[in-house]
């Protein structure tokens, strides 16, 4: 079959690879209907995520049709249209049982690498390096889905493929940020980054009753989309002093909750950007935490900062002093999708959350490298490029 492979730093190509097979009794094989580019892939394509091998198939957000089921699969049958959570959870370890699915103990096939890097390994994720599971990605004609009874969800009748697609990863990620940061009625919430993840975090904060939600980015079409579909206010950080603006809009207090949805390749115009980039290139730091620093600084005293953006290892100039002296709660997580996906599909069906607007471009699998170029450079108003292997 055809698949999109990582061939080295900033090198993607469409290759022939063997078809996936059932390798465990709880697996299903899914024929791809659609997949999407994700900000997390950019970190991986750029070589910032450890343990990639040339020839690895990438992609982790997808919707498709079940074409084969393992002998122990109970909840799915051939023909089901499913959206699949990007993280794989076994459903029965302590972490899964406590709804902390991206921390599952039993789905990373290379635990030693993650343990050396982080102390303990994460769960496995599709197409996201040998450190984070060693599972093949979904930008292909077919993909194997382990523990499918827990990670694949039937898409309700009234929800179309493209809308359902984002429930794989960006919608639950954004929701988790607002949920685990404890957003409640009366809060002012600031969100850094208006990619799909930031937009969904902003929408979740609105639905959880936040008084005001303020989203921050520099790309005009993303800011406009966030205003329209999330119902948030926005700030362009290239033309506005973000900290001062947030102070002014919050009666001098600062936001109660700050959600970071930018990640390790954050952009800025200031002198710190050059410093961060040089250190990152020299591998003296692995990640650029511009938005994290700003969020910690802007947050009100005793507020909460939630980091949704992906970071791989070490950062420099982390404002620890602000964290302790202002009494902040700083938290982060990879997404516990299985915890939220059924509820989010219901909200999608009810029209409370809209996602179709994120799919600004649709391309075939052969054009997938172009899709990633557009998404990376954010050209032609690209928010997410959807890849349809069947087209």
């Amino acid at each position, binding site marked *: 079959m055809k698949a999109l492979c990582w061939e080295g730093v900033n090198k993607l190509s469409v290759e022939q690879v063997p078809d996936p097979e059932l390798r*465990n009794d709880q697996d299903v094989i899914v024929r791809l209907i659609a997949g999407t580019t994700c900000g997390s892939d950019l970190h991986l394509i750029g070589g910032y995520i*450890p343990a990639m091998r040339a020839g690895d198939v990438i992609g982790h957000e997808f919707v498709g049709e079940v074409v084969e089921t393992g002998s122990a699969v109970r909840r799915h049958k051939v023909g089901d249209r499913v959206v699949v959570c990007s993280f*794989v959870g076994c459903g029965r370890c302590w972490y899964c049982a406590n709804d902390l699915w991206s921390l599952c103990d039993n789905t990373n096939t290379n635990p030693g690498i993650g*343990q050396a890097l982080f102390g303990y*390994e994460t769960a496995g994720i599709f197409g996201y390096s040998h450190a984070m599971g060693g599972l093949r990605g979904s930008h292909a004609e077919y993909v194997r889905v382990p*523990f499918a009874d827990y990670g694949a969800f039937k898409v309700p009748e009234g929800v179309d493929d493209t809308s359902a697609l984002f429930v794989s990863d960006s919608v639950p990620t954004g929701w988790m940020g607002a949920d685990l940061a404890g957003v409640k009625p009366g809060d002012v919430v600031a969100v850094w980054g208006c990619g799909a993840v930031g937009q969904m975090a902003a929408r979740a904060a609105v639905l959880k009753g936040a008084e005001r939600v303020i989203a921050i980015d520099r790309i005009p079409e993303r800011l406009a989309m966030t205003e329209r579909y999330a119902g948030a206010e926005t700030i362009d950080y290239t033309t506005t002093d973000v900290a001062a603006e947030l102070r002014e809009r919050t009666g001098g207090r600062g936001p109660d909750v700050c959600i970071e949805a930018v990640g390790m390749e954050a952009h800025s115009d200031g002198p710190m950007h050059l410093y961060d980039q040089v250190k990152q290139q020299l591998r003296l730091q692995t990640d650029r935490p511009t938005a994290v620093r700003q969020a910690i600084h802007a947050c009100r005293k005793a507020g909460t900062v939630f980091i949704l953006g992906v970071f791989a290892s070490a950062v420099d100039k982390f404002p620890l002093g602000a964290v302790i002296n202002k009494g902040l709660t700083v938290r982060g997580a990879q997404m516990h999708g299985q915890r939220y996906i059924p509820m989010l599909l219901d909200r999608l069906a009810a029209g409370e959350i809209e996602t179709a607007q994120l799919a600004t471009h649709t391309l075939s699998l052969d054009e997938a490298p172009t899709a990633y170029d557009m998404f990376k450079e954010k050209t032609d108003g690209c928010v997410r490029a959807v890849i349809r292997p069947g087209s």
Partner: protein
Amino acid sequence: MRKLWWAVPVAVAGVTAVRRSRTGEWRQDRWLTVTVNRPPMDVGSEGMLPPPLDGLAERIDVRIRPAPGDRGTELAVRFKEPVSAASASVPARLTGQDPRQELRRALRDAKSLLEAGEVLRPDAPPTTRPTPGGRLVEVFTRRSGGEGVL
């Protein structure tokens, strides 16, 4: 080599482990432990070990006790005969000669079988393109199931 930066912390973790074991700070006879999200009676007993640990029963000591706070059962194992320094050396570990690798793997597999009913297997083949960098990753992934902090 830009994309191989991560190999440095991973290798350092390995070398540090060996150095600690030499200084006695990290002993080769330390218990390897996992917590299984099942009650002790499901996990087994000294005479009735869960597979695949049962295959090593002659050579290992086993300790099974309830974990605090409803966290299941602590399952700990170690070789009756402590592993020699030579078998725990970096070359032995890279070539898969350290017997603790087999034990760690069996312990992890036992936990997976007890909790999830199967041991997740990676896709095969893992990749279709052999490159020097890829081969290095392969060395790490081949040993990874038997290494780590257990």
